[in-house]
């Protein structure tokens, strides 16, 4: 067996077959690393047993950061650095700050979420995403199983994947 991470790939033609296969493979004690599909498959995260993503919390944190930045910036500019009388308002007119607060919250929350996603999905500029099978961008669903992460032999895993309805079974190694 070669060095690096060795994968067994099950290729599926249909998302319903895929969902049943995921269930079946996991019931047989094989741990699936990831499933790739050309389109979102409803309910796949449930059968894969994924926990809720922590992205929402990252978004909230970035939102709070944006809110804080906007508040500090505006109070600093309008209240401390260069106070000006505008329309007879206070030097720190909070209602007038709200649109900027909103925009900065939304902006940083969105940018932060996209950035976080790029990092955790290995899409960062220096990242090298694992491409298991180029056909997942077209019409095939691929289930990737890391052989070393499982206590089973390669032959057993292939047997289980085959029994679950895969149309092809391939090997792939990432160094």
């Amino acid at each position, binding site marked *: 067996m070669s060095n690096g991470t060795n994968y067994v790939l099950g290729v599926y033609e249909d998302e319903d077959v895929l969902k049943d296969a995921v269930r079946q493979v996991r019931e047989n004690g094989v741990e699936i690393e990831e499933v790739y599909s050309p389109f979102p498959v*409803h*309910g796949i995260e449930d059968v894969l047993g994924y926990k*809720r993503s922590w992205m*929402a919390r990252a978004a*909230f944190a970035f939102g709070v950061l944006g809110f804080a930045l906007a508040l500090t910036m505006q109070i600093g500019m309008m209240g401390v650095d260069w106070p000006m009388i505008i*329309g*007879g*308002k206070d030097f720190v007119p909070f*209602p*007038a700050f*709200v*649109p900027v607060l909103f925009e900065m919250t939304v902006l940083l929350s969105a940018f932060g979420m996209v950035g976080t996603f790029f990092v955790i999905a290995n899409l960062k500029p220096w990242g090298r995403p694992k491409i298991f099978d180029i056909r997942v961008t077209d019409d095939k669903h691929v289930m990737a199983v890391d052989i070393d992460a499982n206590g089973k032999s390669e032959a057993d895993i292939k047997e289980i994947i085959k029994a679950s309805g895969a149309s092809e079974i391939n090997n792939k190694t990432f160094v």
Partner: protein
Amino acid sequence: MEDCVVRPNITKSIKSNLVNTGTETFEFTNKAKKNLMITMVVGLVLSIVGVVTNMGAGNHEETTDGGHDATEMVTDQGDYGESVEVSEGGAAEHHGSPLWLKSLYNNLWINTIYFAGLALLGVFFFTIQYAAQAGWSAGIKRIPLAFGAWLPIAFGLIAILFFLAGPDLFHWTHSSLYDVNSEDFDEIVKNKASYFYWPMEAGSFPAFWVGRLVLFFGVWYLLFRKLRTLAFEEDIEGGESRWKRMRILSALFLVFFAYSSSIAAWDWVMSIDVHWFSTMYGWYSFASWWVACLALTTFLIIYLKENGYLSIVNTDVLHDMGKFVFAFSIFWTYLWFSQFMLIYYAHIPEETVYYMDRWTGKYSIFFFLNLIINFILPFFMLMTHGSKRQNRILKSICVVIILGHWLDFYLMITPGVMKYEGGFGFMEVGLLLVFLSSFLFVVLRQIAKAPLFASNHPMLEESKHHHV
């Protein structure tokens, strides 16, 4: 051809025809009725206590400094320009009914308008689902539809209250405002007269206003009746023809609704502060009613589920209802702020007077409470994924929102009608309880009349498997 089929009294025969089609019907139990009755009686007692205590307080105030508060308000805003001064001075002179009666009218009007809006927006929810050909909501649509049963009651209440309490609620109903020779003559109101009185003479019978009231309720109720009949016919006969006809009727309703709901908000609420106007007002009232309607719908779905009904409605549907409540709470805040912000920043006296009455002084606490209850609370409570999927949290937030938007209407109406003499006490709480329980009574009775969901709806299956 389908019109040739004889269908005698379809609503009555519907239950017996549907025994074996796998649908379910809500039973409005005596226990539930009793609970609502008790709430109603408690509300009535509280209202009476409120009226009695108000009578004492009102007499006292009138003997000492009747109308003084209102005059004081004018001097506070003395630099806001003459037109405002004239108007507020005019309002102070039209003191009208004693304070307790005025307060009673004010409270009746708040609740009447609030629940009229809920009834209308229930039908709006139903029609928007049809117009959008939504599948997810097929199992829950009949709950908001049932709100429409309150429409005729709302019409009656508005009409009676207007003719009974018009001069106390609406400054513009005083005919002396339109008389050049009178010292009450008010040019600003005179210029707006045709909006109320056309084609009659200004200061006489408000034909245009009343005409709109009748037209709006007429069309709303007729379309509601027609949609309900079609929905029930579909239960018996199946097929897609009714669904298609309901889509057309729903689209018609929505077009009419878009105009009428805004105009209704100007007529019933905005014209209380007759000198003031806001181009956001129709949207703003709509948003307030809409959030409350969504919250009440969600609450009733959870209530029905907890009582063993609506098992076809899964958690994902409720999750979507939670998202609706969350999103439209933000939408309401957006409109609230858009209306406030422009007036705050432009600082034009005729406009700021509306917010001066609310932001400062007696109503200040409600002004900020309104934002906390209707924005900050739902925003943080419904933000997470988990909270929208837990019936207990969702239900309690819905109750808070229903009360919160009542407060919103309290704030829209009370400062205009009562000036600085308004308050918050037994009468407010009591009458809210009376209206809430009566509304729920009518709605639940309506829900019990037909199956809870449309068993022949073409998208029912989709709704059962709805997944977010």
